């Protein structure tokens, strides 16, 4: 599988996503500079986490104007697989590839910790290796993860099974206490109606290796590979 990882100025999880796909899962990875206007020969595109353009304005608000975003939209429109993680999710919202907006966390602080999310829809190209209702432990690290949208849009994405992950307790209960940032309906990740664009606030690339003490996040990347019928390769870790 050929994965493109987009590098915006200020992206800082680009290397982490590269490492997972290339060194852990043995796939071909291309780093895509934000000034590129064509995405050729890729199976999937990753918009990584970080602080694109410093996020001094609303998160993702400037990155959506990067030249590469036109290409990402075209890629998505043709059915290409796109995953936006954390800042990548925020950029997808700003770019209109996913519905809704991000508000500041209710605590007003940046929060970095493990959270639990419940897989609400396991019949997707991003979650087919999970069980429906399965609880995954994946860390979050953001100051603006408080998802919000209007009631009609919310009703629509729920009815259409586009809510993929919701914050929950360790035993899978979706409760206000399990919600780290005030997100509407405990939403942690959503998908577009066509099922090829996913945005999620938790960082699966940080919980995909035994040496880091947690491999739950790996299921998401494995699901993406499975959706292409390409099993993950066992690769030796190479390079730094």
């Amino acid at each position, binding site marked *: 599988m050929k994965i493109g990882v987009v590098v915006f100025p200020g992206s*800082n999880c680009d290397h982490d996503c590269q490492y997972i796909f290339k060194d852990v899962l043995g796939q071909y990875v291309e780093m895509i500079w934000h000034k590129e206007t064509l995405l050729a020969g890729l199976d999937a595109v990753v918009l990584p986490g970080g602080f694109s353009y410093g996020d001094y304005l609303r998160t993702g608000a400037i990155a959506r104007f990067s030249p590469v975003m036109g290409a990402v939209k075209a890629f998505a429109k043709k059915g290409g697989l796109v995953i936006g993680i954390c800042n990548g999710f925020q950029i997808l919202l700003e770019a209109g590839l996913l519905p809704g907006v991000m508000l500041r966390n209710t605590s007003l602080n940046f929060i970095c910790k493990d959270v639990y999310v419940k897989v609400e829809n396991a019949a997707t190209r991003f979650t087919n290796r999970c069980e429906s209702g399965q609880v995954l432990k994946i860390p979050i690290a953001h*100051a603006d993860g408080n998802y919000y949208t209007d009631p009609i849009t919310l009703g629509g994405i729920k009815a259409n099974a586009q809510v993929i992950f919701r914050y929950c307790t360790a035993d899978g209960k979706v409760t206000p206490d399990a919600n780290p940032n005030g997100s509407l309906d405990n939403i942690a990740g959503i998908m577009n109606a066509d099922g090829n664009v996913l945005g999620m606030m938790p960082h699966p690339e940080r919980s995909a290796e035994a040496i880091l003490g947690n491999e739950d996040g790996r299921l998401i990347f494995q699901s993406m590979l499975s959706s292409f019928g390409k099993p993950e390769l066992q690769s030796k870790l190479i390079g730094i």
Partner: protein
Amino acid sequence: MNALVITKAILEQHKLSDDEYKKILEILGREPNWTELGMFSAMWSEHCSYKSSRIHLKKLPTTGPRVVQGPGENAGAVDIGDGLCAVFKMESHNHPSFIEPYQGAATGVGGILRDIFTMGARPIALLNSLRFGGLDNANTRHLLKGVVSGIAGYGNCMGVPTVGGEIVFNDIYALNPLVNVFCLGIAKKDKIFLGKAAGVGNPVIYFGSKTGRDGIHGATMASDSFDEQAAQKRPTVQVGDPFTEKLLLEACLELMAGDCLVGIQDMGAAGLTSSACEMASREGTGVELELADVPRREPGMTPYEIMLSESQERMLMVVKAGREDEVIKICRKWDLDVAVIGRVTDTGKVVLKEHGQVVAEIPAKALADEGPRYDRPSSPPAYQEMLQSLNHDALPDLKDANAALLALLDSPTIASKRWVYEQYDHMVRTNTMVRPGSDAAVLRVKGTNKALALSVDCNGRYCLLNPYEGAKIAIAECARNLACSGAEPIGVTDCLNFGNPQRPEVMWQFVLAIEGLKDACEALNVPIVSGNVSLYNETNDLSIYPTPMIGMVGLIEDADRAVTQWFKESGDAIILLGQTREDLGGTEYLKVVHHREQGSPPLLSLETEKAVQACTIRLIRDGLVQSAHDCSDGGLAVALTECCIAGSAQQLGAVVQLPLDGLRRDALLFGESQSRIVLSVKAELAERVLNTAWDAGVHAARIGTVGGARLVIQVDGDQQAAGCKIDLELTALYDHWGLAIPRALGQD
């Protein structure tokens, strides 16, 4: 400008003494102009010249088989094998953080990051050591929140994880908080870059942010003490821009991957002045700069302002002649300002021109290396004997051990720092194996089987009571923290925070502390490869406790063997390595329960320490240990509590039985005897572990068993005295330890 008359008032404003001014006259053979005076003032400030500390710093051990770069460069570098180096340094940003906590702390992080990537290393970890007043003080709460968000704001945006640190709260720091930041990066051993202006004729290139009028004379401010007027110094604090720094980082590493770069240095304290003269001085060359070509934020800036601006996120580099275009192309790719502003010369001088006209001309060495050196008088404070006296008989022994333990857990110095570290991204770059909250942070080194363990530490109260022992303990405890994760110490960086060196009692503390650091480093065989000195930490004539902060790096050959401090499994045996003595002097217990900060701190035998650490490392390496935790603030009872409740995955209780051994009960439970480590091991391995320890000459005893939902600590022969038993539910312990800080901040 040239017709300047240097008055006493002008010298005072520039913090130059009459003797220092005479020396300037000798060096130049004439009167300096305004720009030159400013440059001398900045470079000869305590902050840049180390004039009070340098003769003492020479005593520190700085060499060893792993040392690739010792002190004197932007950071130190230590060989970790596999062709890689760990590059690290710690630095203070105390003064700016007091004046403006968010930006002060943020730019502290920015500065230390630049020091690391300037060397060609990609930064992979930040830690910090903070000192504040008590949290009952509203201004302290403001400072804590500001500093924590400043560190978070900068580090998180940069994508460098803040993986650990420590915080102590004590009223002595209320008007002079300490903000020390540590950074570690990884570089290829054969690709270390230094700050040198080599190759006469090579171009000098400026890149990064534009130069503005911010932070002018920051270095001089940082070399002064404070009074009520401190807030008026806010304009000397810089404003950080982590986004630009992130671009600067990526641009630097991209430039360094090629072969056009000759030397590079960041513009930190004293800005363009220090980078220009230090790069020339190191190489014995000169530089000639055209100030009109320096990218500026606003028109009308004078040479004085351009040379002394401490605008952040700026770099100076020397590249091979003829390669300018490729360098400029990379900088432009990253949207950075870039300009060729001069050339390397063979004159040995820093020559500054403005539109071709010379505006300053100073020998580079005179600025960078030939500043004043002082052997300042030192003598013990008159109150030292009174401080050290502590009559144990005058202290009532424990009446209610449960209450004493809970009071200690409520002390923000001991309480969980979760409220702090959850605001730091501590996982980005996916190397963090052991997150904040254990004895040491542990990071895997990608592409190898190794891991690095990192710890920062210092007990300022110990150093006040006995500067020599306190400094020794800072090194020993840092190394012990590493040992508890299974790591062998390989290098030290220090950040020596003291009061006003013109006070003999402060110099006395400084000189003794250096002796302590030296002896401990030599005994534990670990070199100091970089560091920083922060003096004049006093406000309204009150100096801080001497606080020689230590950052230490340890190597774990087999990353899979790393362990953490919390208990893992019910039924495991709890073993205490090391011996408990009657050490109540200087303890957190004495402060919290008896409201005294006096006595002799625990004395430390370096021989014993070495044996305990070696034994722990060996047991961990052999895979015999489930958890290991050092006994420090709050003694054995607090260490056991943390073993029970500090883990994020689960909480496990313990039942512990201690022999009294003729000790006071409070000393047994809360005394801070050094060289002690709490291990948990599988029950069937307990005998083997005990024997291994005894064979290595280490005192070891099985003191209890892991399990249950309570922490129970009984003292032999104490069955009647029910009040001397600790017996508490873990949830109650956590309610104090886990929530004390948010509660004190009104955010529980």
